[in-house]
């Protein structure tokens, strides 16, 4: 019980600020000592201030300015040679009918489906693996943990290369599927959405002639039929890759939380005669709730940034169904020389991710609130 209250004691006022009342001797000595520390403090942090300021803070402000320009990357964007267009670039993304908006909305749709599938899958897999590895009776826990965590530490470019090989049309995955009698798709060239495939499979809709009500009407540059496509088959390979590489990291976070559950709590549940499912539902899962929320929000933040895998595996193809905002922003800038639009997409993406981070902060605050409650509950 005492261990649960310790963090709060530690998280008190700023270290050293209130420790000792200023005695006369102290008051005499402190200005000099603080002065020395003051100089050294700035010497110590100056590389950080320089590098993070020059390559993080300043660039963001520069990009904010460029997102208001019509700039092709040739001239100096800060000399006034490029046209100042105000919010036109942002308007082009949301309000003006045209190729840019269609592409941007397509990328948002793709990433949304990607998030909706990848986040629950990676969370569930990570939780499942953590529970399995945490089994008391399991032998060789360390080896299993290593195996599941290893994909997380490798280069995204290298594992994307491996997945390209595995998911070729006559590759390893399709050979496996053939063994069980399934004709695998042509993964990287299949632009059909999962929802379309499912509707086709149950015989409801023929994707080659979608219902006119959906195909002929739409919003924001895409027809309803396109909005409702689901992730394309090609996108599913990227989802599988990312679920595989991220679940190990999240498993570790779950494992740390599992090991924090007081042994006494599990023991008392056991003595109460609860079976394993009941223990899982009423003791373990409630204890994991804060970490669960954290993993989900970290997943939401991470999945909006998918870039490397798209770059290596699909370059946004087929039919733009793996295009993501991050990749579109890159392509707009470096391929089409529309840096203003590219920068604007970056900031829309930043806004999306900041909203997710805000959600995370709220969740963390809730977690701290719960922690404060715990000693009282334990005392009962």
């Amino acid at each position, binding site marked *: 019980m005492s261990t649960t209250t310790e963090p709060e004691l530690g998280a008190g006022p700023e270290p050293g600020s209130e420790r000792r009342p200023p005695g006369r001797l102290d008051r005499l000595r402190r200005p000099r000592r603080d002065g020395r520390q003051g100089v050294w403090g700035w010497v110590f942090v100056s590389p950080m201030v320089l590098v993070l300021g020059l390559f993080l803070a300043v660039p963001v402000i520069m990009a904010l300015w460029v997102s208001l320009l019509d700039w092709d990357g040739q001239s100096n964007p800060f000399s006034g040679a490029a046209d100042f267009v105000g919010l036109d670039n942002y308007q082009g993304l949301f309000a003006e009918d045209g190729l840019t908006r269609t592409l941007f909305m397509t990328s948002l749709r793709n990433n949304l489906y990607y998030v909706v599938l990848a986040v629950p899958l990676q969370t569930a897999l990570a939780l499942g693996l953590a529970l399995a590895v945490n089994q008391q009776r399991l032998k060789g826990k360390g080896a299993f943990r290593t195996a599941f965590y290893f994909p997380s530490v490798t280069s995204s470019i290298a594992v*994307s290369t491996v997945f390209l090989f595995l998911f070729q049309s006559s590759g390893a995955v399709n050979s496996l599927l053939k063994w069980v009698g399934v004709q695998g798709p042509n993964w990287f060239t299949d632009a059909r959405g999962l929802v379309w495939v499912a509707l086709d499979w149950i015989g409801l809709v023929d994707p080659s002639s979608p219902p006119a009500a959906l195909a002929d009407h739409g919003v924001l540059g895409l027809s309803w039929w396109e909005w409702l496509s689901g992730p394309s088959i090609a996108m599913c390979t990227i989802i599988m890759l990312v679920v595989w590489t991220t679940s190990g990291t999240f498993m570790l976070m779950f494992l740390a939380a599992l090991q924090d559950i007081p042994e006494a709590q599990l023991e008392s549940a056991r003595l109460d005669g609860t079976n394993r499912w009941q223990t899982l539902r009423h003791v373990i899962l409630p204890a994991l709730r804060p970490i669960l929320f954290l993993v989900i929000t970290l997943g939401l933040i991470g999945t909006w940034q998918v870039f490397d895998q798209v770059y290596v595996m699909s370059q946004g193809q087929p039919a733009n169904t793996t295009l993501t905002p991050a990749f579109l922003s890159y392509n707009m800038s470096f391929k089409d020389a529309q840096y203003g639009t590219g920068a604007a997409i970056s900031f829309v993406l930043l806004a999306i991710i900041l909203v997710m981070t805000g959600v995370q902060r709220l969740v963390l605050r809730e977690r701290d609130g719960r922690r404060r409650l715990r000693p009282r509950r334990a005392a009962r």
Partner: protein
Amino acid sequence: MTASSTSSTTPQARATRRDPRGRLRLIGTLVMSLVALAFLMPFVIQVVTTFKTDPQAAASPLSLLPNPFTVATYRQLFSGSEGAAFPTWLGNSLFISLTVTVGRVVLDSLAGYALARLRFRGRGLLTVLLISVMAVPGVVLMIPKFLVVQYLGIYDTYTAMIVPLLVDAVGIFIMKQFFESVPREIEEAARIDGAGVLRIYWSVVLPMAKPALLTLTILSFQGSWNEFTHFVVTTQSSEHATLTTGLAQFVSGSLGSGTRYPLKLTAALLATIPVAIIFFVFQRHFVRGGNAGALKE
């Protein structure tokens, strides 16, 4: 199993009770082993395929026995015609990762110590800024980084590749957390003995920080070795290609062609091996760093 429950049952009952449990345990371990094997299967297939010929890799991608067994791809990478690029990638990756690692270990711990311990004007503000910097997603910084590098006239140089990576916010945060956990008394004692800030840092604090510095070293090496987006937007010429950008260039845009996968997979494998070795040797440091990086509040 408590002593009272075992003593009250006959040996026979005990045996039957223990047996299913033992069998369950065996089944559980077996199932988990299969899951782990499936998890690592992509790497197994990758390694095996690097020893295959092109036709064999295309014809039987699943077979785990290269027949004929060949190391042609490895030879090709280091000496063949298109292999001429690979040693450049490898050299660049090594040079940049080592430089960045040294830079981060020195500069991150300096900043982390100052933020944790030294009293100076603006420390609170800097800490807040540091934490907000960590919230900025890397992908959003691609175009901004390109802009500033272009503006400074260092586009497509080693300076642009290395300097922006020399300090990283998460590393500073890890070091700051560590220094805050060290008891103050030791530094106080040194101070009373008349040691200055620099001396205390160098001969009292840093020696205590060895475990944290090792974690930082490993995470920095892994991070810069696997870095991709930063190099994509700050370089363009092939002489500055790293293992990540070179491989990505080599692999992307050849969709579905299905050719020369043994060569590509060999390059990918060689790009994975250094981090894999470090991972298996220093695993617990990855674990610690992973959790610290994720729980940045």
